[in-house]
């Protein structure tokens, strides 16, 4: 029986963890199988949950988030027969751990291009949740995409806060968005968990375009969400569960544009917003990145961003 361990945000964070849950549910529905799951409440439970599931024979154990890297390195060697998959981690080295990393900066780059092309004012905005490197990573890719499409474009970036409350403060998200609009922004990209709900809502209310994150959020405000930067955590989880005990471990799987691990959401809800020109540019950029002709710089490379100052 596979097991799924959600990160602290909880399984209904409307983005990352929820995507994992959706992937697992899809697997369960398709195969009729069952899986174990836990939502953690505290840091100390990370290791606890890992051991618990390992001891009761769950296999594979899929865990979410970079926070699991450290506990996993303590637990994985103790259970050599159990297979682990960890999402958003790429720097460990254990034979029984499968690491899945997403190239969020590449996906963000594409939505950045779309934002720049959709913007009439030449100013676009980014709203991050809690100020952590991962979110800067999103913002950095976005800014590079914006500049690629329109070198003169201005990117306004704000973080919501420095405590976990920053993930669940849609009111502040709204206010930030309004402030960005007053500075001329007419497209806003939110990578802020529950706070993003407020960003998208305000964008819709104020008549500017927004960009969702992680899962497809286009349907939240049809015709007002330009696109969503997809991070196919659901696919990663689905495939890990489908592989079951045969899961390939000891590898780092990078889910980039080539693997369709990240991408832009196109559906009926945003069809009217996406011009052919935009679509062509995005497709070209995707091909270039996959081919290595364009290099999107990752924030992690030297903790700074060529296109944006944090």
């Amino acid at each position, binding site marked *: 029986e596979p097991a799924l361990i959600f990160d602290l945000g909880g399984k209904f964070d409307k983005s990352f963890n929820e995507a994992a849950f959706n992937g697992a549910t899809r697997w369960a529905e398709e195969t009729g199988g069952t899986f174990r799951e836990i939502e953690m409440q505290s840091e100390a439970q990370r290791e*606890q949950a890992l051991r618990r599931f390992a001891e009761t024979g769950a296999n594979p154990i899929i865990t979410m988030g970079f926070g699991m890297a450290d506990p996993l390195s303590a637990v994985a060697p103790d259970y050599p027969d159990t297979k682990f998959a960890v999402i958003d981690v790429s720097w460990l080295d254990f034979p029984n751990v499968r690491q899945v990393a997403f190239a969020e900066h590449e996906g963000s780059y594409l939505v950045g291009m779309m934002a720049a092309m959709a913007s009439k004012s030449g100013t676009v905005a980014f709203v991050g949740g809690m100020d952590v*490197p991962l979110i800067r990573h999103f913002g950095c890719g976005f800014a590079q995409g914006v500049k690629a499409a329109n070198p003169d474009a201005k990117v306004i970036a704000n973080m919501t806060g420095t405590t976990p409350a920053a993930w669940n403060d849609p009111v502040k998200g709204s206010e930030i968005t309004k402030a960005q609009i007053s500075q001329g922004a007419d497209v806003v990209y939110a990578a802020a968990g529950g706070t993003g709900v407020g960003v998208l809502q305000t964008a819709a209310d104020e008549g500017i375009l927004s960009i969702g994150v992680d899962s497809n959020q286009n349907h939240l405000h049809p015709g007002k969400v330009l696109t969503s930067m997809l991070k196919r955590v659901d696919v990663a989880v689905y495939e890990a569960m489908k592989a079951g005990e045969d899961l390939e471990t000891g590898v780092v799987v990078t889910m980039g544009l080539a693997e369709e691990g990240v991408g832009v959401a196109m559906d009926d809800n945003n069809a009217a917003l996406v011009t052919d020109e935009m679509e062509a540019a995005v497709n070209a950029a995707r091909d270039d990145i996959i081919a290595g002709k364009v290099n999107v710089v990752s924030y992690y*490379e030297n903790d700074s961003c060529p296109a944006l100052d944090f």
Partner: protein
Amino acid sequence: MDVMPKWAEVVLVPLISLLLAGIISALVVLAIGEDPVAAAKLMVTGALGSTYGWGYTLYYATNFMFTGLAVAIAFHARLFNIGGEGQAMLGGLGVALACLYIPWPHWSLALVGAAVMAGLFGAVWAAIPAWLQAKRGSHIVITTIMFNFIAAALLNYTLVNMLRPKGSMDPATARFPEATNLPTLHDLLSPLGIEFSKAAPANVSLLLAIAACIGLWVLIWRTRLGYEIRAYGHSESAAKYAGISPFKITMIAMIISGALAGLMATNNVMGEAERLVLNSTEGAGFIGIAVALMGRSHPLGVFIAAILFGFLYQGGAELALWTSIPRELIVVIQALVILFTGALDNMVRMPLEKLFLALRRARTSKAAGAAD
């Protein structure tokens, strides 16, 4: 004169209150379509049924002991320190600096060094609001709330921009060197021939917390300083009459309080995570308020309340692990426990007092009748 015998006050009232909280919690569990009896069993066996469960229960309890004591000592001086959270964060910073930048030869020395740093950092973070209260009259409730936010920003800055190993995604420090890793209860107890779960995070700082409970008990109830702190807390005017300086007491009480909150970091940062992560305190500073209030600011009460909360945390984790009960239910159960044992205790006490009074009347009248 006391209406009730002491055992009734100390044992019966909290027990009945807990029972009431349990009954209401059971109703809530029932309402969301789960089996309350099974849930309760799961919580008890999960938290207390194995050394593994105990290891986690005691780990959480250790955190709450430190923050609970921190709030309690401030309460004795009639100061409401809501800043335990921020002080504990700063304590974590102190521990991280001590562990990362000083080459310790042995964990015991590292613990001493880290504890000093943790206490120092926490104390400084409490001393500023204390000084502002004593000298400028700035209300300590506001300033300590503000200092929590400021601490969060400071910690974020140091972790994201300074202490994070280059290229790491995780806003956390590197792992502390092996030599600073604290022995867990397993390590401590196996030489004594006691088998304790290897996996549980409870560690030697539990002993530090217990020592802090005892130390604080001695401080409050046996030393002249404690006597002065309590006197000041009861009556500022009388304290002045007796030559007890309000400034001195405010500063000392808050410094001790902040140091205790800071010391929590020896458990969660040094003992468990063995590195400093962004959200390491996880609201333990606020739980400390509930713990101190429920423990009536007495170190023994704080100890017991901390274990109760440790039980709720660990039992709750087990619930989440084995059932589909959402984790918010645990928060609700915590709320009910706080409500019934802490705020609605008179609901139990009042009828009990009537009962005991009636019993006593009956006894004395019978005795009088016998005497005639």
